[in-house]
C-alpha cells in the first residue's frame, strides 16, 4: 500500500498533511502519536472509509480487514456468527464458515464460548472476537486502530502477544495505530511518529531487533532512545508552550 503526499480535510479542519507512507507485504508499520494527531483518520482513509482531499492512496493488497478501537460486534449474533460475518459477506457456505470461525475462536483463546452473545463476553474477549473476525477473511493487510487501548496492562500484554503470533509472525502486513510507544516498538518493523496539527510524519524509525529479543527491558530502553530525539519528545512530552498556541 502506498500513500503518496496524502492530505485530509474535514470541513474547515485540516487533519493530515503531506503523508508519505508505504506498507510492504508482510511488513508491520506502527504509526504512533499523541491523541488528536490524526492517527485514526489515517487508518480510516487507508480503509477507504473517508475520501482524501489530496494526493493518492494505492492499495495493492488483495484483501484488507480492520479491527476498530471498539469491538463493533453485532450484539444480536452469537460469537461464532460474529467471527464468520466477513465470510458470510463473501458467500462462503454456512458449514464451512462456521468451521473456520471455530478454528479461529480456538486460536484467539475463546474455546467453549462459541454460543455466547457479545455482551456476555468481557471487553478483552470482545476485542479478540473482532481480531478473529478480521483474520477469518484471510486478509493480507490488517488495519488496527488502537485495538487494545481500553484494556488493562495484563490483558494488553496478552493481546499484543496474540497479534504478534497471529498477524506479524504469519506474514500478514499490518498498519497498527497506537499512542503507546512501547506497544509500537514491540509489534513494528517500522515505527512512524505522527505529530502536530495538521498531522505530519515527523520521524521514522526502523526496528531491527528480532521479536524474540524485544523484552520489557529492551522496550523501555528503545522507547527512551526514541524519546531522546527532539522531534519525538516534542510531540509526546507535555509542552506548555505548544498547549498555549
Amino acid at each position, binding site marked *: 500500500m502506498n500513500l503518496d503526499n496524502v492530505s485530509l480535510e474535514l470541513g474547515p479542519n485540516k487533519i493530515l498533511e503531506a503523508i508519505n507512507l508505504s506498507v510492504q507485504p508482510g511488513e508491520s508499520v506502527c504509526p504512533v502519536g499523541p491523541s488528536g494527531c490524526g492517527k485514526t483518520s489515517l487508518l480510516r482513509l487507508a480503509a477507504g472509509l473517508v475520501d482524501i482531499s489530496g494526493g493518492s492512496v494505492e492499495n495493492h493488497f488483495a484483501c*484488507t480487514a480492520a479491527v476498530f478501537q471498539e469491538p463493533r460486534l453485532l450484539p444480536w449474533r452469537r460469537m461464532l456468527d460474529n467471527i464468520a460475518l466477513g465470510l458470510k459477506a463473501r458467500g462462503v457456505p454456512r458449514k464451512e464458515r462456521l468451521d473456520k470461525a471455530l478454528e479461529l475462536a480456538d486460536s484467539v483463546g475463546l474455546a467453549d464460548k462459541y454460543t455466547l452473545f457479545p455482551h456476555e463476553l468481557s471487553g478483552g474477549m470482545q476485542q479478540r472476537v473482532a481480531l478473529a473476525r478480521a483474520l477469518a477473511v484471510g486478509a493480507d493487510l490488517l488495519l488496527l486502530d488502537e485495538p487494545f487501548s481500553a484494556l488493562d496492562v495484563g490483558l494488553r500484554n496478552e493481546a499484543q502477544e496474540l497479534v504478534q503470533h497471529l498477524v506479524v509472525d504469519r506474514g500478514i502486513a499490518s498498519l497498527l495505530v497506537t499512542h503507546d510507544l512501547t506497544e509500537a516498538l514491540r509489534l513494528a518493523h517500522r515505527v512512524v511518529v505522527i505529530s502536530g496539527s495538521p498531522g505530519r510524519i515527523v520521524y521514522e524509525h526502523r526496528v531491527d531487533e528480532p521479536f524474540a529479543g524485544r523484552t520489557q527491558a529492551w522496550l523501555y530502553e528503545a522507547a527512551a532512545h526514541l524519546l531522546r530525539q527532539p522531534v519525538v519528545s516534542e510531540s509526546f512530552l507535555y509542552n506548555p508552550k505548544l498547549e498555549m498556541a
Partner: protein
Amino acid sequence: MSSLIRTVLSWGGSLTGILLFVAIWEWGSLNYGSFLLPGPRDALASIHGFWQQGELWGAVWATTWRAMTGFALAALAGLVLGLMAGLSHTLGRALEPVSTVLLGIPPIAWIVLAILWFGSGSMAAIYTVAATTLPVTFAGAQIGARTLDKRLQEMGDVYRVPGWIRLWDFYLPHIVSYVFPALITALGVAWKVTVMAELFATEEGVGAGLAMARVNLDTAGAMAWIMVVVALLLIAEHGFLRPLQKKMEPWRQGASQAKS
C-alpha cells in the same frame, strides 16, 4: 427457588391491581344500583347468557378475525414502508407528513369513509383498523432503521457486507426492538377500532353486540362485551406478541438474566 418466589410475587402484584379494580367496581355497583352500573357478577352472568344463546363464540371469532387481519396488514405495510423511509432520507421526508395526516384523521371518520366505500361488513372494519394502525408501525420501523449505529455500518463497509445480508444481519434485528413496542400499541388500537367499526358497520361481532345492548338498555350486557374484548386483547398481547418477541430477541433475554 428464589425465582419461583419472585414469579409468584410479580403475579401477586398484578393480581392485587386487578382485584382492587374489581372491588371498586363492585362497590360502585352496590352504591349506584345494578341498572346504572352492573357489578362484575352481573357481567359474568351476561357472558354466560351469551354463551348459552350461542352468540359468544361467533362474536369473538368475527371480532378477532377482523382485528387481526387489519393489524397484520398494517404491520406488514408499516414495516416495509418504515424500513424504506428510514433507509432513504428522501423517501422519509416524503412519507412522514403522509403518516402524520393518517395519524390525525380520527378513527370515526375512517369508519364513515369505509362504510361509504366498501358498504357495511367486515371489509369496512378491516380497512379502518389498517388505516389507523399503519402510522404507528410505520413510525416504529422508520426510527429503528434510522438509529442503527453508524459504527456498525462502517464495520459493514470494511467487510463489504452486501445489501441483503446487511438487511438481515444488521437492520432487521435492530429494528425489531423498535417495532415490537409499536406493534403492542397498534394491537391495542386495533381491538378498540374494530369494536367501534363493528358498532356502526356490521351485524355480528363484539361491537354489534354492544349496539344491541344499547338498543335494549342492557348495561350488564355492555359490560360483558367490554370484558370479552379486554380479555381478547390480553390474550393476543401476552399469549402471542410477547412470546414472539422473546423468541426473536434471545440476546436481550441473556442481558436481563445477566443483570438479575
